């Protein structure tokens, strides 16, 4: 009911234009200028992907390192896990990006590039969520697996590496895929410190071309395509890993 009323409205909005005419010429690939603008926008993909992928790899590692003490029987390591997760989860990503880029160099007396500030902020922010995902995944593995590993005298590291984590990771793959998608979107925030990724490029082009509607529409489509491709990739991976063994 709502849909039937909204659809014509949406069509009106997109096709008819709201306040005047569309100016697709800014990104028209058949003109030299349009092509140049389009390439300028698409080039941002490189940093968006590099930023997100580097950050997620670090955050997976960090998350695992934070998750493991959370599974300990003793209280102190569990507290470390809790404090880390609660603190990091409470800081907005944008705030963390600003703090790492402008604050951290002063505190630690280092210089940090825009790229690595972005990676670091995204990775830390995401690691709290990764930690919770890993903790849930590892906890979902039957106790008998731990006991069997113990009974053949595997060390803790070997048990985790060969027995528990391979099974846990398969179970948390959908959640890890989610985080990757989330990361790709959140990387747009790194534009505020000047990272030349998709969003920053779109902003810059808007300033010179004065066509926000068309340029931001292209930006939306860029993210949409990127994330649909990534989602398909994650689903393919899930299928492949699921096929290896079914219980």
């Amino acid at each position, binding site marked *: 009911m709502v849909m039937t009323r909204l659809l014509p409205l949406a069509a009106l909005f997109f096709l008819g234009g709201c306040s005047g005419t569309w100016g697709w010429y800014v990104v028209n690939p058949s003109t030299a200028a349009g092509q140049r603008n389009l390439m300028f926008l698409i080039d941002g993909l490189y940093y968006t992907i590099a930023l997100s992928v580097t950050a997620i790899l670090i955050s997976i590692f960090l998350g695992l390192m934070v998750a493991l003490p959370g599974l300990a029987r003793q209280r102190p390591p569990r507290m470390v896990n809790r404090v880390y997760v609660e603190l990091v989860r409470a800081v907005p990503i944008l705030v963390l990006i600003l703090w790492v880029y402008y604050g951290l160099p002063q505190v630690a007396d280092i210089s940090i590039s825009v790229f690595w500030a972005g990676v670091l902020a995204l990775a830390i922010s995401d690691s709290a969520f990764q930690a919770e995902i890993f903790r849930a995944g590892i906890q979902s593995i039957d106790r008998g697996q731990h006991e*069997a590993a113990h*009974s053949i005298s595997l060390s803790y590291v070997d048990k985790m590496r060969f027995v528990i984590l391979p099974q846990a990771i*398969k179970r948390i793959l959908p959640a890890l895929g989610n985080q990757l998608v989330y990361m790709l979107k959140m990387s747009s925030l790194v534009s505020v410190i000047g990272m030349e990724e998709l969003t920053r490029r779109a902003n810059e082009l808007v300033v010179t071309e004065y066509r926000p509607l068309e340029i931001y529409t292209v930006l939306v489509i860029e993210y949409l395509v990127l994330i649909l491709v990534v989602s398909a990739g994650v689903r393919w991976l899930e299928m492949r890993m699921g096929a290896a*063994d079914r219980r």
Partner: protein
Amino acid sequence: MRDSTHARSTQAAAGRAGGSGTDFISLRHVSKFFGDFRALDDVSLDIGLGQKIVICGPSGSGKSTLIRCINRLETHDSGEIAIDGVRLDDSTAARAVLRNNVGMVFQQFNLFPHLSILENLTLGPVRARGMDQVAARELAEYYLERVKIPEQIEKYPHQLSGGQQQRVAIARALCMEPQIMLFDEPTSALDPEMIAEVLEVIEELAGSGMTMICVTHEMGFAGHVADRMVFMDHGKIVETAPPQDFFSKPKSDRCKTFLQQILRH
């Protein structure tokens, strides 16, 4: 190729059993609590090398807890457990003695579902023993032969029947070449038609001189295999006797009732 290791264990058996009377496993006044629940209550038990002990008793009587304490899957709260003269605690010496001596088979098999049968068998020898892959494979093949499923080596656990999975689990424990095998209700999770094939493998193992502690309700099997029956109730060892005495003239009433119930069918 494997004869050398068997020579080692039988030699050790001869050396230790030789008159001195030292027991390979000894439990002294062992107690274990789960919260307020007393799972083991002042349990003392001595087991010589090569002996086969069958533990039975009603559920919740502490049978599983007892053998899990011997493997340190549970830590006992008081008393002392020693294997080969080494007291079980958190020390590296205790860990080494467990690694070199004790194998365990679980009710639920607990095979690693993401690993092939071969990988299930070689993981322990390669990672915990530092054996190379080729030697570990030979070892795995040898023990799969002994549990009579050499043809399943490349398969995954879920492709096997319950009985086959449990035999793989036995082979996995044997690949660590333990002196003692602990069996925690090895046939309780199996369909009836698969129980025999697993018991047969365990009986053969018993025949080869392996020291065993087995928790089971299979009384026919217990009668064949056990040197000694141990009956537990409420965390205590109520009665221990050779199987012929145990089944024909149980002393305690609790044991009589239990045997009547379990043998009625």
